[in-house]
């Protein structure tokens, strides 16, 4: 490289590539303005509170109130436990059924696969307001079709006004949410199943692995990364959930706070409800705790699980 002929042009000087910055700028500005700055502002707000009518830095005092004051702590832990149950029901009902549906859909002999795929995915596209409203009507003891349908098969005695009972209400709301969002795990897994090369399946068949054992031994290990992604999406979605509970059970998440999750607790605290005035500092504190919970969950997944997952390359 050193003895280049003198006549040779000097190495082409690359122009400064301004366009990269220009293209990135809009996204950067918008993302900062509506995601990063408010997030930082929320974190900051959680360290402030109104003292003698003026905002003042109070350090961790808001967190002390949230975890130290018996009533605040009671509300918070109640919401967290409900949220964990909400998440557990999604993991135990929505995701396994989603995987099973995807497995069924990907069987080559299934007729009307496109119809099923669309029908099952459709509720995901509906607004949560519509979903909340129709399920409230379906389950209504007065006008609902649920009691009538159950009476047709002689199980009317099993029907109860679930949404109004403090035990079953949370389960009912979770199952409504499952019904709505089951299309997402189904589609992701379906795509993962389709991407398994035929050679692998053929090789398995040559070795005599067919049917269910083929699913368990060949397909499932290959779609595990997709299941991991679904789990983490469910986790983030559930701990940010608010809309469905709000539309079905109201901001007080009745009966007797049995469906109160972190999202509704945050809403009531931050914005206030009826005669209760909003408290931004405590609201920001709860929002921060929620952020930390989600951050911890995602980090755990990224560092402890995803790294150990075996990936197969074809």
């Amino acid at each position, binding site marked *: 490289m050193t003895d280049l002929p003198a006549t040779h042009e000097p190495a082409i000087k690359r122009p400064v590539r301004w366009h990269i910055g220009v293209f990135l700028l809009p996204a950067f500005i918008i993302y900062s303005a509506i995601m990063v700055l408010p997030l930082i502002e*929320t974190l900051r707000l959680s360290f402030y509170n109104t003292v003698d009518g003026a905002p003042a830095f109070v350090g961790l005092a808001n967190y002390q109130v949230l975890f130290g004051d018996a009533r605040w702590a009671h509300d918070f832990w109640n919401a967290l436990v409900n949220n964990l149950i909400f998440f557990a029901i999604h993991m135990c009902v929505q995701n396994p059924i989603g995987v099973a549906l995807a497995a069924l859909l990907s069987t080559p002999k299934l007729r009307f696969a496109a119809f099923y795929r669309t029908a099952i995915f459709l509720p995901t596209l509906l607004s949560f307001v519509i979903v909340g409203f129709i399920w409230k009507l379906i389950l209504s003891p007065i006008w609902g079709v649920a009691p009538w349908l159950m009476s047709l098969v002689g199980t009317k005695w099993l029907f109860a006004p679930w949404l109004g009972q403090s035990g079953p209400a949370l389960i009912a709301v979770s199952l409504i949410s499952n019904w709505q969002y089951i299309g997402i795990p189904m589609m992701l897994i379906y795509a993962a199943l389709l991407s398994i090369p035929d050679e692998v399946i053929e090789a398995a068949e040559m070795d005599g692995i067919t049917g269910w054992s083929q699913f368990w031994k060949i397909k499932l290990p290959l779609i595990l990364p997709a299941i991991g992604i679904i789990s983490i999406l469910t986790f983030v979605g559930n701990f940010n959930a608010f809309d469905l509970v709000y539309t079905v059970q109201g901001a007080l998440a009745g009966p007797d706070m049995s469906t109160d999750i972190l*999202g509704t607790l945050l809403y009531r605290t931050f914005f206030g*409800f009826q005669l209760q005035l909003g408290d931004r500092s405590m609201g920001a504190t709860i929002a921060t705790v929620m952020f930390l919970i989600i951050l911890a969950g995602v980090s755990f997944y990224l560092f402890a699980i995803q790294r150990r997952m075996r990936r197969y390359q074809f």
Partner: protein
Amino acid sequence: MTRIIKGMLFASTVLASAGMAHAADVTLTIESWRNDDLAIWQEKLIPAFEAKNPGIKLNFSPTAPTEYNASLNAKLDAGSAGDIITCRPFDAALELFNKKQLADLTSLSGMANFSPVAKAAWSTDDGAKTFCVPMASVIHGFIYNKDAFDKLGISVPKTVDQFHAALDKIKADGTYIPLAMGTKDLWEAATMGYQNIGPNYWKGEEGRKALIEGKQKLTDPEWVKPYEELAKWKPYLGDGFEAQTYSDSQNLFTLGRAAIYPAGSWEIALFTSQAQFKMGAFPPPVLKAGETGYISDHPDIGVGLNAKSAHQEEAKKFLAWVASPEFADIYANALPGFFSLNSTPVKMADPLAQEFVSWRDSFKPTVRSTYQILSRGKPNLENETWVESANVINGTDTPKVAGEKLQKGLDSWYKPAK
């Protein structure tokens, strides 16, 4: 979660600016939670005002009731709220006045048209300053299906015993659900239940003041007995009342499937337009015949002035008009069930509304016990009362436990002035 908050804040600012003025006329934007009244404002009230005040236009822009307080506070803080603010009674509005977001209206012409009791809901604790023009109050009671009562031969109950006898009779007959009330939305149980029948037990203002002064507690019999009575309503409610919402109850009654509806007078307009049968109303039954009865005659709506409004003079003109007998007349007749607080009596055409308002002569009025001062802290007594009233009817808590829980919550922040 921050995404939801941001979305809401953003939506509220966009909505607020949607009704900006465009002409040379001054346009006053009215913030309200009464989206049910949109037609009445647009067809009756706004034309009546604009005809007399050329150059001032009104824009009525309501928000959903449950979101009103939150969105109004956000808009006021951001400086994007309308000129005229519809005021919730007591602390919610007082808080805005203390933050200097509502202007002082003590000297507004027309304020003299209101009694101190009417102004109390929008005055400072000492009554020295008033910041909203009282607009309307609502009265609690029971609306009943007259046809059903005639068919079953039931006369209007006056005492609690007669009330239960009537309920038993309706239940035994089986045609009607005795009481149209559910606990799903919680506030029905608290507002139409507890605050409706309660004043007869705690003797209206006497008990309410004693509670604020700390002389009575929510664990005292005056405050627990209404819960015991509520718990007795359970067998008279419809099947699956735990999941029955407010609109379910309204429909059950207006469709003629239920005989008695624990009501607020705001239902009158809707019920009159929907029900195909004759209706009557009776006040909350007293404990013993001949006793003084108490009713909840609760100031519900006022109108105030955004202190940061650019059109103070025009807004005051409008508010003075709201305080006039002319407004009271149009409003009370357009919305039977929202009773004017104006000292000048208003003639109302609706018979059901007349029935409700006639109780003002023989019953002592009071306001809802949880509204003044007692819902200032956390936990919020009003919200807790919603939860506990529903719990008592559902049987989740006994009346005694409910009283204890509420008092414990109140004690945690409220120290009555000694």
